[in-house]
């Protein structure tokens, strides 16, 4: 049975292009133009993954509300925000509501597909028992590449997909400086410097939420970042 992806997007051309791309990838796709349409459909059947725009027709924050309601229906359903809004505040709000990723619309379809696939892999992995081979251990850090879960000293650190990939890219070769371009490639995104910086800041803050002494992500000014053990 094909996995069902729900696209909630008020811009018909984008909606249809995404739908076409996902269909080509072998997914079943349902598209909705506004929150009410989407919610009534979700009440009948939950999709396997939802791609949501923030502003929906006459509701500028409709996507957030939809995310909240959807998360209430299912705590594990992967939710991706895909929006033209790129402000830091929107990203923080979206991720706080339980979205798995927050992406801007300049993301290429290939990158989008990679993420969708990764999220589905995670859903699958969560259903299977844990396999030791998929764990990357770097001191107190352990990264489960299948479930895309990070732990610090055995405590779970909730990371978005982009953040997880950045941490993974840094921790994979500790001590090596990863410049911004390398991090973007690893995270399947195209971002500007400030957005990378804010991603790194968020990562640090999340780890510091678990361990206030966390200091593993180091800035190499003018070059990039590296993981230190």
């Amino acid at each position, binding site marked *: 049975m094909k996995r069902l992806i729900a696209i909630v997007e008020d*811009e018909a*051309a*984008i909606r249809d*292009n*995404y739908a*076409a*791309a996902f269909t*080509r990838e072998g997914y079943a796709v349902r598209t909705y133009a506004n929150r009410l349409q989407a919610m009534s459909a979700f009440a009948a059947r939950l999709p396997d993954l939802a791609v949501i725009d923030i502003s929906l027709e006459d509701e500028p924050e409709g996507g957030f509300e939809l995310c909240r309601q959807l998360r209430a229906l299912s705590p594990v359903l992967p939710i991706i925000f895909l929006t*033209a*809004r*790129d*402000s*830091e*505040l929107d990203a923080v709000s979206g991720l706080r509501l339980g979205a798995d990723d927050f992406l*801007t*619309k*300049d993301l*290429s*379809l*290939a990158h989008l597909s990679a993420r969708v696939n990764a999220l589905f892999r995670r859903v699958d992995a969560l259903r299977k028992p844990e396999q030791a081979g998929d764990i990357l251990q770097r001191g107190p850090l352990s990264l489960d590449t299948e479930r895309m879960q990070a732990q610090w000293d055995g405590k779970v650190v909730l990371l978005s997909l982009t953040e997880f990939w950045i941490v993974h890219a840094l921790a994979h070769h500790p001590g090596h400086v990863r410049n911004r371009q390398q991090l973007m490639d690893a995270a399947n995104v*195209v971002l*500007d*410097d*400030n*957005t990378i*910086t*804010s991603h790194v800041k968020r990562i640090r803050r999340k780890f510091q939420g678990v361990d206030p002494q966390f200091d593993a992500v180091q*800035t*190499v*000014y*003018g*070059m990039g970042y590296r993981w230190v053990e």
Partner: protein
Amino acid sequence: MSLRLKLLLLGLLTLVLPWAGCRYAREMESALREGEQTSLESVAETLATSLEGRVDLLYRAPTGPDAVDTAALSKSGPYDLRPVALAAAPLLDGYSEDWPHDPSVWAWYEKDAAHRFGVLTGVYERVLFLLLDVRDAHPVFDAPGASPLDPHGLGDRVWLGFQDPAGGERQVFVAASGPGAVTARYVESGEYGQQLAQLEPRIRGAWQLTPGGYRVELRVPLSMLGAGFGVLVDDRDARGGEPLSYGSLHPDDLRTLGHLIMASPDLTTYLAQFSQPGLRLAVTTPAGQVLARVDALKRVAELAPAPPLIARLYRRFVDQPGTQPPIEARVAVYDREHHNVIGELEVTQTPDRWLRLRDRALTRMLNFTLATSIVVVIAMFAFAAWLALRLSRLRQASESALTRTGLVTSFPDTGARDELGDVARSFSRLLGRLNEYTGYLRTLAGKLAHEIRTPLTIVRSSLENLEAEQVPSSARAYLDRARHGSERLNAILLAMGAATRVEEAIGGAERTRFDLVPLIGSAVAAYRSAFPERRFSGELPAGPVTLEGAPDLVVQMLDKLIENAVDFSPPGSTITVRLGLEPGAAVLEVENPGPPLPAGAPGHLFESLWQSRTGGDNRPHFGLGLYIVRLIAEFHGGSASAGDLPGGGGARFSVRLALTG
């Protein structure tokens, strides 16, 4: 020239008022003088008319039908005597010590070299005093005890002949039988034809011998005297001898030959009633001998109080140097028939009279106009200062409004109701609109990026879908170009939103303490690998430079400066990054060889969307890079500036960052 100075000079123009006042005062003075002259002449005319024919006053001659020949009266002859005014009555003792010693007032009569006598006449309080100095080698006294009319006992004698006020001729004689007091006598024909010598007690005096002759001193009440007067000396060399008569009386009948040139005391009294302070009235004979004079010229102090110091000061500006001459009027006094001139009336008036009048007017006017000038000058100066203050406040406000992009919420003077207030209001409106506009411009890039993102997403997703379709290889090239184009468009969008994101980043930045030296060092090392076509020279201080701020932002700022330097420097050139210390601030400088800054740009270089230089590549430029530099510098309590390198051939960008204590 400042506005203040201009208005001050304008105010000084009011000094023309006192100047005009001085001119006017001069005009007024000459008019006043003319008027005074005219009125003085008419006064003289009136007075002269009142004196017409008054020979009784002028010459003490009778005015009745048997009037004397007025023409003769007014002509001065050799026998006329001019009495002097005496300061005190001389003691009648025959000595001359208490008389004036001036030889020129003596009148001399002589028969021959051996016989001559001098007469000195003087008046004191309506009494005529005579002093006779007779040169006589043989003075002879009358025989003592003899009758004065006895021809054998006659010695030297002195005859006085005069006209009485009615015009009749009278003669008295003075004779002495020894030195001492004498009394005049007159010869009267008795009842039977005999001649009697009667005493005339009103005429008396003293007789004294002198080394060259004798001296006779006499007094005669003026009330006895008319116009004619004469003295005759009978000189005898021996008692009872034939006399040698000479003098100013006719030797035969003793008629008077000359006059006493002296007005009646009543003339002085008459003139005195017309006397005024500062006025001098004088009546003279046609020949110019003064008959009577009332002089009040010096009594000017009674006219008006002495002019105050300031008036005397003003006078120096108005008057020509030298003293003002008095004004005079001379009018002839005629006889009753209006044929002959019997005298002249001379009226003199001191200039003080009108000068003081003028001074009073002048002082008031000058005080007034000077006060006006001072008030005007002060007022204008104050007004100018006030205006200048308001203008400079306006200027400062507008300058700070233009140089800083910060919102100008309050503009000074917008409440004023004058034209300056209008200017301030329109400035304020203009700046308000400018602010709205720059605010709009600042957000325009971000807004535009946001708005373009959706259609761009449509294009890109469509292109990506198209790539998945069966596309003929001939069309693949177009697809590639379209994809490249859309990617460039995306890069542009990212650049356009950069400033907004930096502003957001600044808003959320956390401040930490960090050392600038390793930070810059590491960044410079990174630039060497990032821009292999440029050489980088880092000049860093040895010690730590501790700053409180966001290191990420500082590096981003340096990135922008380096990008700018790379853009405008030729490949292979050296870009210098220098960190220096100033009191309270760290100074980060980036120098690059290349073209100089465009003229007039340094002030604008760091403004949003300012783009005046064209870079050497195809990367999008929105003039945001240096704006970001400024935002970050200001976040660190500093500022950014730019200038040409000394000697040209490049540019230097400096950023000052406030150091923490």
